[in-house]
Each structure stands twice: as structure tokens, then as C-alpha cells.
């Protein structure tokens, strides 16, 4: 008895000693990434199995909140890797000077070219309006169709959520100078504007609106996780805007090797195969086992629209004014 307690004590001391030597990698990401249902727990287990390190996630709201948090912490940040920004945010992130080049060039399965030296994609998706196919047999096939319909949609606020900003860029990329007119047309169709994706999606699921701004991959969740095939994404002829989610290495990291190792790991099968059924997005590199079955039923929009980061940043404020003026009727 005494001996086993002593042994346990020794074991305890030795694991503590081992822990003290284990390097820690801090990854700052958005909230839903680290939740029990997000990729976080599996990614942590997979990476720790090969890095001999302790991976610690730090979470803040969504992509925009992650950036705000990083800017707030500045060079004092603990984060070694920031994961979860999208291309509408990366110009601002790059301008902060807080990121270092990743120096990696893996082969990516993106519907767009990628050559950003600071940020590396880990997943992507097309924004889309999701609807209930039992209630809407003939969904609108374009923004102009939607304007002409009597459907109600819930969208997210571009000032407080990344999908909201994505829609702003979508209309801008598709219609350019005509975007203000599109927004004026859409205004009567918009039931309300929510702070974030989860509130909008909840309103939609509760039948408040006919459609919600989400992703083409959203129906896959319902199909795979719930066996529910009633949700579909409407395919628009203008094409769909892409959200490409990226990660980058913090310039001031005290674990540059580990951070780079993590970014390299990020585009491997071990990480990428986790993404489809946890983040419900397309993996940046298609896993060797392919995508889960449900993904084959999803629409495949063309063309894919994406403003380069600098153009997205430049377009943001004028587009926001346009949006505000059109909707503040």
C-alpha cells in the first residue's frame, strides 16, 4: 500500500518534470473550432501524437474577433499560430506586421489560385442561401430571382460577422457598380440582420425566414448528422463567393519550428480528414479517402468569386455604406 502510494507520487513527479520540458504551442482560433463538436479536440490529439508538444487552443468569438484579439494583444500575444481568419480579413492582418512568412507551398485543392506568403488555407466553402426544399420547390437561381420573389431571408451583419461581410463581397464581386441597386432590391426580402451566423441559422431553423445566408455545405450537416435531406443550398448563376479560412505564424513566436510544423501538419491528411464533418467546410486538401458521402449531393457553383485580400479591404467601407444606405430605408 505504502509502496504504491510512493510509486504514484514518483510517477506524478516524473510526469510533471516531463511536462515542464514539453514545449507548448498556442493556437489562437475562433470559438466553434475548439468546441467539442468542432475540429479542435481531434486536431489536438492528432498533432500532439506526433509533435511531442502540448497544443493549447485559445478561442475568441469568430474570425473577426480572433483578429481583434490579436491586434489588442499586439506583440505581447502568447499565440504562436493564428487560425481562422478569412481572405476578407487577411489584408488587415498582414498590415499589422504581426505575421511571419510560412515558407510552405503544399498542393491545394482550392477553386482559386493561392500564393499568399503569410497565410495558408486549411478549409474553404462557398457562401449560399440555404432553404427548406419541402417548402420551396423552385428556389431562386440568382440575386435578381431572389429580388423578384416573395421569399424572406435572414442575413448576418457585415459589421459583426464574417458571413455577413462575405455576402457584401459576394454582391460586390458579382455586380460591381450595380451592387447598390442589388441591395436596394434585396432590402424588402431581408427579414432581419443578425449579429452572427448561429443566430441567423437558428431563426431559419425555427421557420422565421425562408432562406438564410450560410454555406453550400450546410445541407451536408443535416444529411450526415441528422439524416435530414430537406435542406438545400440555392445555386446562383452569378457564381458564389468563396470563404477561404487560413492560418498564419505569428512573427514573434517563441516556437517558430513548432509553429511551422503545425502549419505543415495542417495540410496533411491527418488534419484535413477531420474538417468536413466537424467544421462542415471543404478541406483545403482533399483527403486520400475522399469526401464523406453526403458531400456529393451538394451543389457545385461556378464561377467561384473571390476578391483578392487588398481589393476586399479597399471595397469594404464603400460597400458597407452602400449596404447601410440601401437597408436603412
Amino acid at each position: 500500500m505504502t509502496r504504491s502510494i510512493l510509486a504514484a507520487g514518483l510517477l506524478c513527479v516524473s510526469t510533471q518534470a516531463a511536462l515542464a520540458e514539453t514545449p507548448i504551442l498556442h493556437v489562437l482560433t475562433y470559438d466553434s473550432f475548439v468546441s467539442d463538436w468542432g475540429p479542435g479536440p481531434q486536431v489536438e490529439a492528432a498533432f500532439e501524437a506526433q509533435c511531442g508538444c502540448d497544443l493549447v487552443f485559445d478561442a475568441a468569438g469568430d474570425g473577426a474577433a480572433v483578429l481583434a484579439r490579436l491586434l489588442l494583444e499586439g506583440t505581447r500575444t502568447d499565440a504562436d499560430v493564428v487560425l481562422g481568419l478569412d481572405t476578407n480579413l487577411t489584408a488587415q492582418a498582414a498590415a499589422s506586421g504581426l505575421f511571419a512568412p510560412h515558407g510552405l507551398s503544399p498542393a491545394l485543392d482550392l477553386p482559386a489560385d493561392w500564393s499568399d506568403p503569410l497565410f495558408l488555407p486549411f478549409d474553404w466553402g462557398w457562401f449560399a442561401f440555404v432553404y427548406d426544399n419541402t417548402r420551396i420547390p423552385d428556389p431562386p437561381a440568382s440575386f435578381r430571382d431572389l429580388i423578384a420573389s416573395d421569399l424572406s431571408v435572414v442575413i448576418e451583419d457585415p459589421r459583426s460577422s464574417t458571413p455577413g461581410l462575405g455576402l457584401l463581397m459576394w454582391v460586390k464581386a458579382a455586380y460591381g457598380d450595380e451592387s447598390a441597386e442589388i441591395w436596394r432590391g434585396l432590402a424588402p426580402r431581408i427579414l432581419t440582420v443578425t449579429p452572427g451566423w448561429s443566430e441567423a441559422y437558428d431563426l431559419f431553423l425555427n421557420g422565421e425566414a425562408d432562406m438564410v445566408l450560410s454555406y453550400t455545405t450546410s445541407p451536408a450537416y443535416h444529411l450526415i448528422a441528422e439524416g435530414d435531406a430537406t435542406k438545400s443550398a440555392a445555386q446562383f448563376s452569378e457564381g458564389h463567393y468563396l470563404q477561404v479560412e487560413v492560418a498564419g505564424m505569428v512573427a514573434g513566436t517563441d516556437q517558430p519550428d513548432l509553429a511551422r510544423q503545425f502549419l505543415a501538419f495542417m495540410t496533411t491528411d491527418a488534419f484535413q480528414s477531420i474538417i468536413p464533418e466537424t467544421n462542415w467546410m471543404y478541406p483545403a486538401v482533399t483527403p486520400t479517402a475522399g469526401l464523406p458521402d453526403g458531400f456529393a449531393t451538394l451543389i457545385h457553383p461556378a464561377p467561384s468569386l473571390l476578391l483578392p485580400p487588398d481589393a476586399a479591404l479597399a471595397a469594404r467601407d464603400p460597400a458597407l455604406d452602400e449596404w447601410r444606405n440601401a437597408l436603412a430605408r
Partner: protein
Amino acid sequence: MRWHAEPRLIKPAAALVAAVLVLLNLGALAAVLWRADGEATLQPADWVALRFTVVQAALSALVSVVLAVPVARALARRRFPGRRLLIALMGAPFILPVLVAIAGLLAVLGRNGMVNDALAALGLDRVSLYGLQGVVLAHVFFNLPLSVRLLLQGWARIPAEHLRLAQALGFGARARFRLIEMPMLTRIAPGALAAVFLICLTSFAVALMLGGGPAATTLELAIYQAFRFDFDLGRAALLALVQAGVGLVALGVLGFVRLPATRQAGLDRLAPAPPGGLARVLDLLAISMAATFLLVPLGVVIARGLPHLADLPASVWAAAGRSLGVAALSTLLLAGFTVALTLAGLRRRWPEGLGMAALVASPLVIGTGLFIVLNPLVAPSTVALPVTALVNAAMALPFALRATLPPARQTEADFARLSAALGLSPGAHLRLILWPRLRAPLGFALGLGAALSIGDLGVIVLFGQTGTETLPLAMQRLMGAYRSEAAQGVAVLLLALALGTFVLVERLIGGRDAGA
């Protein structure tokens, strides 16, 4: 009342609380300003936001308090089985997380809600909840319970003798209102109005969810935008200053309202039988309509979530434990704040204003300011829970003081002379005079604080890290992961915990007769 010496401990204690609150409010703002670079200016859209903020807050306050008058009166003078339970339940919307409450409200009044289905069945047009009317309605949903509770305490303090007098003199409903109830209302209503106005001033999610678009932008949302999208700390601080300015004006107006003192103290005799006839019918109507408006949405939230309660993941229960811990710490802090400021407030007016000031501040600015201050000292995530408890306590303090200060002052006005004539020591004065008269409102105040702390998402979102999520954050995460059914289960858990904590703390502090 100079003849009664103030215990020496009160002044430093109140000063300490004051320092904490001032540091929390102004310090946070200063921290944000300090980190800001460049000049900030207000944009045209900000003025629109200012106007919308003031209009919706003023309307919300007015409607909440006006509607609360008949409800509080009916509840005060009618006795029926389950009355206390009803009062406790009717308080629930106030302590609900915004998202849960909105979901319940939508189930009743939304596009596919019961009301609209009924209208459609009758061949009538559906009504829309989105827009200014929706924002005000949701705010009334949240704040009617608070208004009713505050007014109810006013009614409870009308001496039974006055009601007997009214009856003896054959007062009609109008005379009774003008001569007996109105004087009480002029003392209680301004506080209730100010409280609701200030709560709605910093409203964010309600306006955004139900406002229907950017026309319904509040200042708090503009602050959020400045932080999150522009990372323009200077503009965020400037907007926070504008918001605080509006709040301070409201507080100033409250300060100018003359509060007539009533001298009569009752002997706690039973009130005479309430008027019958039409008054009885109207009371019944007021109670049942308020109960329907407040309870049906809650019923829907429960009915939806109950089936999913059993299969909630283990992490949710851990989060619930964490939320209870935060609430316990927050309630302790609130108790200290409230007692110190109430005792100090017996002779001065500033503790009241100071307590209210917490409502003026932007929670976002406080959270961000604290983050800026703490970041160089400790890893913010390690102090996420205590900081959340502290901010929750500061946010609940205004309500607590609204509940405890008026009866404290009344008690002092009635009995301080007797206490002085008998030479009661400060301890005996506290134990024999103030405590018995104040434990019920204090119990209410602390119960409210505990419940608010459980339901509030709070500043933890700014500090959070894996392993520190509270129950509201867990719910948010479930929703963010398409798990809206599990989230509905968590909503029920939140509702039960918030209500349970409220009742428990109120009974524990307030004694058996609390909540009357």
C-alpha cells in the same frame, strides 16, 4: 438625521466600492483610449445610431413601466393560490440569456408564431415583429418583470392604514390612484424608468436580431463594429463616451426628479380587502395578460428543450458547474457592494448615482479595457472567471440598489429617531431595525444578481479559452456547431438554474416572507 452617528466602517467601505466601480468604468475607458491611436470622429451613421438608441430605450422604458403599473397593482392587492410562484416565474425573462428569450418570443410572436398563425387562420394579415416595434416589444418582455417587481415593492410599502383610509373615505379608483398610489409611483417610477432606459441603452443583440437591418443600429453595436471590424479603439471609446453621456443625462434627470418623502410608516397590518366589481375584473385581466405575455414564450422554450436535456454532453454539465461558481462569487461581491453603498446611501445621494453608473458603461468597453489592463500582468484566460464575476456584480449593482435604497431610506426616516432615543448601538440598529426591514429587498436584489450572472454571456467571450466556458458560452458554441436541439436543451438548463438560484438566494437572504 445627524443625531445618529454613522458607524466608522461605512465610509471607507463605500469609498472602496466606489473606487472599484470607478476604476472598472473609467479605468477601462481610459485603457481603451490609451491604446487608441489617431483621432476619432463621429460619422453621420453614428448620429443615426444615437437617435435610434435613445428612441428605442425611451420607448422601451415608458412602455415597460406603464404596463407594469396595472400588473403590479393587481399582484399587490390580490391574493390567490400560486401567487408567489407566479411572481417568481414572471421574473424569469429578465434573467434569461437574450438568445433564449428571443427564441421564445419568436415562437409566440414570430412569423410562424402562435399569434400570427391565429391571425392567419382568421384570415387576417400577419404582423411583423421586426423593426422598432419588435425591439421595443422584446425590451418590454425583458424589462416588464423588473418594472413589476420594483413597483410591487412600492405597493408593498403603501401602509395598509392608507388603504383603509381610502376605503373609509369612499375613494373611487381615480381618487385612490391620485392620492395614494401616485405619490408612491412618483418615488418609485423614475428609478424604474431610468433603470429600464439604461438597460436598453446598451442593448445590442435584441436591436440587431429584431431591428430588421442597419436602421436599427444602436450605439453599442457601433462600438462593437469599431472594435471588431475597424479595430478603431479611439472611435469605440468615443462612441462609448457618447453612450455614457446619454446615460448620465438620464441619471441627471432622475436626480432632478423631486422625491417627496412619505412620513407615515405602517404597522404591517393586513391590507383591507381590495375593491371588487370592475376593479377585480381589470386586475384579473392585467395579471392574466402579463402572465400570458411573459410565460407562454418560456413554456415554448421549455417544451422545445426538455426532450434534449437528457442527452446533453458532459462538457455542458461542467460548464453549468462553472457558471454556478461564477454566480456564487458574483453574488458575494454584489452583497458587499450593495450593503456598503446602501448603508452609505442613507445619508448621501452619490452611492445611488455611482451604482447606476455601471449601467451607463458599455460592457464591451469594460471587457476590452480590462483585457488591455490585465494582458501585461497575467494571461487573461486565467482570470476569465473571476473577472466575469466582478463585471457581473457591477452590472447587477444598479438593480440591487434600486431595490434596497428606497426602503432603507424609508426605514431610516421612520425609525432612526427611535433608535437614537433608545441608544441602539450601530450593530443593534443594523440587526434590529435595518435587517428585518431590508432582508426581503436585499434577498430579491442578490437573487437577481445571482440569476443574471448565470444567464449572462458577459465579458468571458473576450477572455475565454478552452476549459473556462460557462453555460451561456456552451450554448453559443452548440448553436455555432449546428447543434440547435442541444442548445435548446441548454436553454432549459439555463432557465432552471437561473430561476432556481434566484429563488434559493431570495429565500435564503430574504427569509420566508420574501417575494411577497
